[in-house]
């Protein structure tokens, strides 16, 4: 165990996996000597050089395509797309090629490819640099979607993502890069993809969240504990495939569920969770599943506007309180 930041944990995961497997390589804009716009690949180039850590042109479609071609022919590339907002420039590669090629070729190929990117608001980066687009990728069969919320998760989930033989959208969060935490130094420290984690056990209500909002949910849970509302908080870790077993198991204890997400409320991840709970856990529900999410607006620049647009601990706590109002 060592204390490190979220960004250091990512770099360490990359370094360890590149040490372990010479077929792992990295591509992206400014990921080389500069260490990435979020400094999440700091030190990787110093160790492996320009053959394995490739600074590319600003050509998102070709970056992902290059990684795909490499993945189809024996390599295990890690790609960085600087902001998730820029995946708009490589959606053909991601959605029509990476996600589908194995299926379209009837299983002739594997696609061991990790697309690292980062999303989220909270830093006044405005509408084109603050989105939470995980639902786009979750909606496309053939992709796994992973979202770490702590340094330990960043490392353990990234190492797992690099080792699986399928494409993974690995979505980091821009606000979390400086967060510190204890991280295992076991070179085989892997956190399984597709499994949610009960971060805080509780009896009265379940909060499901991921990435930065998970941390805010935990804050809200702390506040609510003082009011005798005992929240169970689940960190989804993987958005697709969804770990419904974990959600339903918790719901069967608590009877109530709140989904907290930084994506827009409409047509988001919370909708799918709510719909599945409707189908699979209707009888467990003591009240409707609720969602706290970002307003259905492009993310505004001005901090005072952004603050009202996105969730925070107070809004989460208020939503929970409302679920108990009148009970």
């Amino acid at each position, binding site marked *: 165990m060592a204390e490190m930041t979220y960004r250091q944990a990512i770099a360490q995961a990359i370094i360890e996996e590149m040490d372990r497997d010479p077929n792992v390589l990295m591509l992206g804009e400014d990921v080389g000597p500069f260490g990435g716009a979020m400094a999440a690949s700091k030190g990787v180039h110093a160790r492996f050089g320009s053959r394995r850590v490739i600074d590319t042109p600003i050509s998102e479609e070709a970056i992902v*395509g290059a990684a795909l071609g490499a993945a189809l022919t*024996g390599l295990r590339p890690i790609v960085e797309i600087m902001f998730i907002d820029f995946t708009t420039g490589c959606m053909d590669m991601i959605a029509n090629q990476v996600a589908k090629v*194995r299926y379209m070729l*009837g299983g002739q190929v594997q696609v061991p490819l990790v697309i690292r990117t980062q999303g989220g608001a909270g830093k006044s980066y405005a509408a084109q640099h603050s989105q939470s687009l995980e639902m786009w990728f979750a909606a496309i069969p053939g992709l796994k979607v992973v979202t770490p919320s702590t340094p330990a998760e960043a490392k353990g989930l990234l190492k797992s993502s690099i080792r*699986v033989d399928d494409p993974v959208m690995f979505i980091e969060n821009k606000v979390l890069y400086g967060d510190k935490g204890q991280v295992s130094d076991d070179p085989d420290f892997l956190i399984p993809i597709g499994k949610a984690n009960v971060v805080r056990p509780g009896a009265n209500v379940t909060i499901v969240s991921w990435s930065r909002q998970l941390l805010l949910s935990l804050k809200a849970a702390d506040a609510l504990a003082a009011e005798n509302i005992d929240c169970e908080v689940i960190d989804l870790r993987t958005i697709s495939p969804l770990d419904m077993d974990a959600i339903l198991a918790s719901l069967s204890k608590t009877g109530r569920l709140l989904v907290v997400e930084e994506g827009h409320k409409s047509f988001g991840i919370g909708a799918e969770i709510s719909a599945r709970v409707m189908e699979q856990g209707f009888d467990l529900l003591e009240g409707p599943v609720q969602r706290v999410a970002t307003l259905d607006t492009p993310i505004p620049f001005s901090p005072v506007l952004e603050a009202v647009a996105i969730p925070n601990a107070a809004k989460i706590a208020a939503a929970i309180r409302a679920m108990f109002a009148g009970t």
Partner: protein
Amino acid sequence: MKTKDHLEILRQMLRIRHFEENLYKMYLAKQVPGMSPHLSVGQEAVAVGVCHGLKAQDYVLTTHRGHGHVLAKGANMNRMLAEIMGKETGYCHGRGGSMHIADVKLNIVGANGIVGGGLPIAVGVGLSCQYQGKNAVTVCFFGDAAANIGAFHESLNMAAVMKLPVIWICENNQYGLSTHIKRTLAGESIAARGAAYGIPGVRLDGNDVLAVHVAANAAIERARAGQGPTLIEADTYRWYGHGASDNRSYRTREEEAAWKERCPIKRYVAGLLNEKIVTQEQVGQLEKVAEREVQEAIKFANESPLPDPATVTDYIFSA
């Protein structure tokens, strides 16, 4: 070039011609599900001229109009036709169909339903060969109209800047669907765009299989020697419509007739006969063999089982 090379080139062109002509008939007879297939009749010289110079370890990526390319790289007709008919015995177990035929064991790593979709992937295949020190080149076919899509630019630039062993083969069949390339392509030619990336751009008669072969081989050698990519623009023509159902309202029958006069197979055969490299009997024999191969493939495909509907979600993920 040895006689056996000539015979092989001719054999491959005839295989493609007979495959596509029969597929057209099958389409008319409603034996082919899905979109009307994108036939490459008339363009055989490009596929064969390029692929004849490739080795087994070399890679090919193709397009929506890809039957010729995969045949020329050695694909099995039975499995191709079974795929086109949506059968379990097809290359993709019926998941892909006409636009997604590939034989990964032959290093054909993908066809594409997206115009220009193969180009970025080809960059990666080239990168992979360079990285792994494989002595392999990657050939990426695409159409004239694909030269206007962003992926073309990003891919040619990236491959050039990384000096990757990729050969860009543009089959300029004059049209993107209904639109003549002159109406959508700014600049003198597609080949001329090579200069924008500091790579050779070669334009040639794509109905002259030997000209294609010579130019492709030069590009292949260049790529193998680590000197980076080449862009080749081969002028040719698709005899049928965009898909087999297209009535070609956007061009004249005269234009078509003129191009059919320049049939790449007829011209090649005439030359071979003229120089007494082959006899008319040999040509007839090769035609027969090609037709027999297709007929066997039709039989194979017809007799093949459909996929089991219960397996519909197979092959999404590896694990």
